[in-house]
């Protein structure tokens, strides 16, 4: 499998009045196409910081140390920025200049955000804007990166002929691989976007076959006014929209320009929500966040993350705030999506038992480093690092007659003055002299199973 994301020696620190918190201290990580990578570790180990770094959404007091590399689809973005070297980050550190760099990174990488990488945050209750309709919040993500697709979808309905519809119905009725044939059909006829709309109708469970056919018939739409048409064509062909930008500022005209795209966004939003098993999606898009339950809101967040078909989705504890049943449903949904779409996931959780349900590989984080990473079986049954073993023991087990929860003795280190050598040595039951002085290197103990610990070499 090819790698879609490689992180090398990533160091992210936070400058605060109470000192510099060294949240990430040289993270090395790779993410492969189509896999779900679990990221586990105690609170404060830097999981969210890692996610935010990939999203280029770090707060302005964050410092990315020179030498850090985030390589997304073979592009090393950070190399364009004049980052501060480690030794310059001291008391006389130029905060203002660093804030400018961080803002620069945020603005420069806006184009990948939501399009190549998106993120679902922990708190579904507060992640959505209370004043905006669900549909609008999804549409906004679509408009940011996929207005071409939206325009093409509208045009495809307008350009649809009677013959085309008949052909589509034939494919639907007789084809063995409807999805593939529809794709080919839309390419051939230059009706980009029609295939998704047909598939959405076909996948609906609440309609009879006859109703579905009738809906496919009624996909055909009348020509819109000339102004709208020329605007849509400009957008669909990805041409510069010069004066339309200005016309869009005039409220009456906006209805016929951007308004048309927004309406299409709602349409696409309904399809996305339906894909995520949200009942009555066509009503939900007009609702406001407070009208939905936590689980529903988390699905909406996932829909927003999925909107532009990103390569990577980072899920930051997506289930922690939900009750167990909803948690299970969301996990189911993520496993489903993993098979349906070719998306790589980074699933952050402090709960290994949750990760066990969905992940292909698991990375264990401690003190801003990945101390062990490997395929899920190896992490669970052949774990190497003393910290991983401790975490596994901390999962509540209910065996025949004993209930045991063991916690790891000691506390997470103060990240302002992290311990020398191995971060874990103050809490490690197998601590040796070397652990106190040297930082262990990553060792490939068995195939694809890496560990940073002196117990296993050097």
């Amino acid at each position: 499998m090819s790698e879609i994301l490689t992180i090398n020696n990533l160091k992210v620190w936070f400058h605060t009045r109470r000192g510099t918190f060294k949240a990430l201290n040289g993270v090395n990580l790779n993410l492969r196409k189509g896999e779900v990578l679990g990221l586990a570790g105690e609170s404060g180990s830097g999981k969210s910081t890692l996610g935010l770094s990939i999203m280029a959404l770090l707060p302005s007091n964050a410092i990315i140390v020179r030498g850090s590399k985030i390589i997304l689809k073979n592009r090393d973005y950070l190399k364009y920025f004049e980052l501060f070297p480690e030794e310059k980050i001291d008391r006389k550190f130029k905060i203002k200049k660093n804030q400018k760099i961080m803002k620069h990174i945020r603005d420069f990488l806006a184009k990948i955000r939501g399009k190549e990488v998106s993120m679902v945050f922990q708190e579904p209750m507060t992640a959505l804007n209370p004043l905006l309709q669900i549909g609008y919040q999804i549409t906004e993500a679509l408009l940011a990166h996929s207005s071409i697709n939206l325009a093409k979808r509208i045009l495809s309905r307008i350009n649809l002929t009677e013959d085309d519809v008949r052909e589509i119905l034939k494919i639907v009725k007789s084809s063995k691989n409807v999805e593939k044939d529809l794709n080919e059909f839309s390419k051939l006829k230059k009706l980009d976007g029609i295939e998704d709309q047909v598939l959405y109708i076909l996948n609906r469970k609440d309609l009879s076959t006859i109703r579905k056919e009738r809906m496919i018939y009624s996909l055909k739409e009348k020509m819109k006014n000339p102004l709208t048409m020329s605007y849509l064509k400009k957008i669909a062909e990805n041409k510069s929209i010069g004066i339309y930008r200005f016309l869009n500022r005039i409220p009456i005209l906006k209805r016929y320009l951007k308004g048309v795209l927004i309406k299409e966004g709602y349409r696409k939003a309904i399809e996305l929500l339906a894909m995520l098993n949200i009942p009555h999606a066509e009503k939900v898009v007009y609702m406001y966040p407070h009208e939905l339950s936590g689980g529903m809101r988390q699905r909406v967040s996932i829909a927003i993350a999925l909107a532009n078909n990103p390569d990577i989705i980072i899920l930051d504890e997506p289930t922690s705030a939900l009750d167990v049943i909803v948690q299970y449903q969301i996990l189911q949904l993520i496993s489903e999506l993993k098979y349906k779409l070719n998306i790589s996931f980074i699933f952050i959780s402090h709960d290994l038992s949750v990760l066990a349900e969905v992940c292909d590989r698991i990375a264990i984080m401690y003190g801003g480093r990945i101390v062990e990473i490997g395929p899920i079986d190896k992490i669970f049954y052949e774990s190497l690092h003393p910290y991983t073993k401790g975490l596994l023991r901390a999962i509540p087990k209910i065996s025949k007659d004993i209930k045991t929860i063991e916690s790891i003795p000691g506390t997470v280190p103060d990240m302002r003055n992290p311990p020398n050598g191995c971060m874990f040595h103050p809490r490690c039951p197998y601590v040796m002299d070397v652990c106190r002085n040297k930082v262990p290197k990553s060792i490939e103990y068995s195939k694809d199973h890496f560990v940073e610990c002196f117990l296993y070499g050097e």
Partner: protein
Amino acid sequence: MKLWLYIIRRILLIIPTLIGLTIIVFILIHVRGNNLIIAEYLNPHLTGAARDYAIQQLYQRFHLNDPLFIQYFYWLYQVINGDLGLTRTPIYSGPVNTALALFYPNTIMLALVSSILIWIIGIPIGVWSAVKRDSVFDQSTRVATFTLYAMPAYMVYLLVLIIFAVYLKWFPISGAVDPLLLQGVSWYVNGISYPTHIIFIDALLHGDINIALNSIWHFILPSLGIALGGVAGIIRLLRSSMLEVLDQDYIRMARSKGISESEVINIHARRNALIPAVTSFVYGVAGLLGGVVVAEVIFNIPGVGYWTVQALLNNDAGGILGSTLIFGIILVTASLILDIIYAALDPRVRY
């Protein structure tokens, strides 16, 4: 949308408040004793039996011999029919409702112009100083608003007056219009302009562009002064609520979609931050409509505040109670409008 149903319900709900208000004003009238109520109407030249007879007549006319609660209904009937009693001050003597009709237009114009100024100055500055937190712009805004906020309103007005009228001489010192221009003007009689009582509009209606421009020139300084006095509060409120909003999860979520920073600010942050500021703004406008008392006195503008002060100085009960009643009604209406604005702005408000 069931918004209109909500509005109707809300309007019905203010009726008890209004009844309460009229009862309080009624009681205030009556604690002063019956003689004071009829004093305004009594011909002071009468003596002896004629005077007693006149008093009898007035007692009958105002039903003062009936039980108090019946009197209330008589009085309420009178008020509803627009009869608020008499006022006697050096600047105006006659029915209170005529006085209100004369003085209110100037106040409304002043209040509206300065509210608009507060809104269009306050929002961008408040939003920007939060967005550009700790920048030079933010620091200077904070110093300026803090200074304005700490100063009593009359000092702001006096400062404006001293700087722009006395020192720079850009604007006239006082009055609503230059009295020389009004000499011999047919629609201006005894210090009152007709038909709307707002000199600016009346001048336009009669085609006297000169006078209209002159009145605008006179209105700029008072409006600016009032706006400066009121804008600091809005800016400070907006800045802090904006900072709070910018820290919310949904802002990070909005950024994670890759939309532009200006969309994050304008669509996601600003509207949320405005909700708390609206309350302070609407009550601010209501306060201004209740008579920008100090400003009108300092700038010598014949508005309702100016008249109320005259009524106070002259112990003129009719004027004081009339303006109390009207101000009460304005506040009740403001809270109604505020509820409607909330219902329209915030989908979480249930109706």
